[in-house]
C-alpha cells in the first residue's frame, strides 16, 4: 500500500470514518470454528502455518461465540445439532457473517437422509458457500475473501451499536436435548 511513505511525505491522510471502520473490520474477521465433522480438519489446516490465514487477519480463532464475527459451519448439521448451531449464532454479536463450509453444511451432501438438515440456509442466513467434500483450505480462504469483499461493498458499520444487539435463542418446544 505504501501507506508509510504517504505519511512520511505529508504527515496525515484524510478518509471517512466509515471507510476506516470497514477497513479495520475487513482485516480482522475473527472466525468461530464450528468443526462438527471432517471439514473441521481442513479448517484447522486453513488456520495453521502452511496456508496461514494470518495474512488475511483471521488467525484468531475465538473459542467463544461472543468474541467472533464469522461463523464457520464446518460439517454435517443434523436436526439435533441445528439447535446448537442456532444457539451459537445467536450468541454472536452483530455484525456477523456465516460461511457454510463443505457440501454437507450447504446441501446435506451425501447424507440424503431423514436426520440431516438439507442445507443450513433453511435456518441461517448464509453469506458464502464452499463446495467440496471436504474443501481445500484454499477454498476456505476464497470464502473468507468473499466475506471481506462483502464487508467492503455491502456492509454499513453501525458505530454506536457494536455488540449490543444479541438476539435471543428461540425456545425448542418439541424436543428437550439439553
Amino acid at each position, binding site marked *: 500500500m505504501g501507506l508509510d511513505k504517504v505519511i512520511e511525505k505529508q504527515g496525515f491522510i484524510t478518509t471517512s470514518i466509515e471507510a476506516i471502520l470497514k477497513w479495520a473490520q475487513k482485516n480482522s474477521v475473527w472466525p468461530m470454528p464450528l468443526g462438527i465433522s471432517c471439514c473441521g480438519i481442513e479448517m484447522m489446516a486453513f488456520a495453521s502455518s502452511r496456508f496461514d490465514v494470518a495474512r488475511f487477519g483471521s488467525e484468531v480463532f475465538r473459542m467463544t461465540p461472543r468474541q467472533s464475527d464469522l461463523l464457520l459451519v464446518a460439517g454435517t448439521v443434523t*436436526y*439435533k445439532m*441445528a*439447535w446448537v448451531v*442456532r444457539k451459537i*449464532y*445467536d450468541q454472536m454479536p452483530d455484525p456477523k457473517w456465516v460461511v457454510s463450509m463443505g457440501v454437507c453444511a450447504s446441501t446435506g451432501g451425501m447424507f*440424503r*437422509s*431423514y*436426520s440431516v*438438515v438439507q442445507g443450513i440456509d*433453511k*435456518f*441461517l*442466513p448464509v453469506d458464502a458457500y464452499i463446495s467440496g467434500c471436504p474443501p481445500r483450505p484454499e477454498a476456505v480462504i476464497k470464502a473468507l475473501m468473499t466475506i471481506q469483499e462483502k464487508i467492503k461493498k455491502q456492509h454499513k458499520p453501525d458505530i454506536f451499536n457494536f455488540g449490543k444487539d444479541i*438476539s435471543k*435463542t*428461540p425456545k*425448542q*418446544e*418439541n*424436543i428437550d*436435548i439439553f
Partner: protein
Amino acid sequence: MALPKEKIFEVVGSVYENFGIYEHRNQLSIIIPPDRLQEVCLTLKDNPETSFDMLIDITAIDWLKGENRFETVYFLYSNKYKSRLRIKVPLSGDYPTCPSVTNIWESANWYERETYDMYGIKFEGHPNLRRFYMPEDYADPETGEPIYPLRKDFPLMGIPDSLPLPPYPEKYSEN
C-alpha cells in the same frame, strides 16, 4: 477360528437341541428362538469350554416379508479362545418382543436401547428402555404413531415435520 465348531454345538446342545446353523465364509451363526435365548446365552458365557464373556454388538434385520419379519443379531467374542460367534433370533409380528440379555452382559443396555430406537423391537426385562438417538416423542405428526427409522417401510427422507428445525432469524427473514 480358534474354537472348534463341534465344541460350540456341544455347549449349545446341552441346553437346547434344535438350534439352526448358518455358516458363511467360515463365520458361524446359530439360530435360536427367543424363549430359549436367556439359557443359551448364559451357558455360552459361563461354560469354561466356550467362555463368550464379551458382547460386541446387538443389532436387528428387517426382512419386511415372511413369517418372521425381524431378526435380532448378537455378536459375541471369547477373550479366552479369541473366537467369535453370532446368534440370530427370529421374531414374529410387526411390533415384536425379545428377552433382554442385560442381566448376562451389562453392555447390552445401550445396544438394546439403540435397537429399540431404530427398529421398535421391545426388549423385555430391560432396566431403561427409552429411545437412544431420536427424540423421545419421535412420532408421525399426522397419525401420532411412533417412527422407527431403520425399518424397511420408512421413507428415505423421513416423515415431513417430524423433526423440528429452529426458525429463521427474524432480522433477516425478508432476505
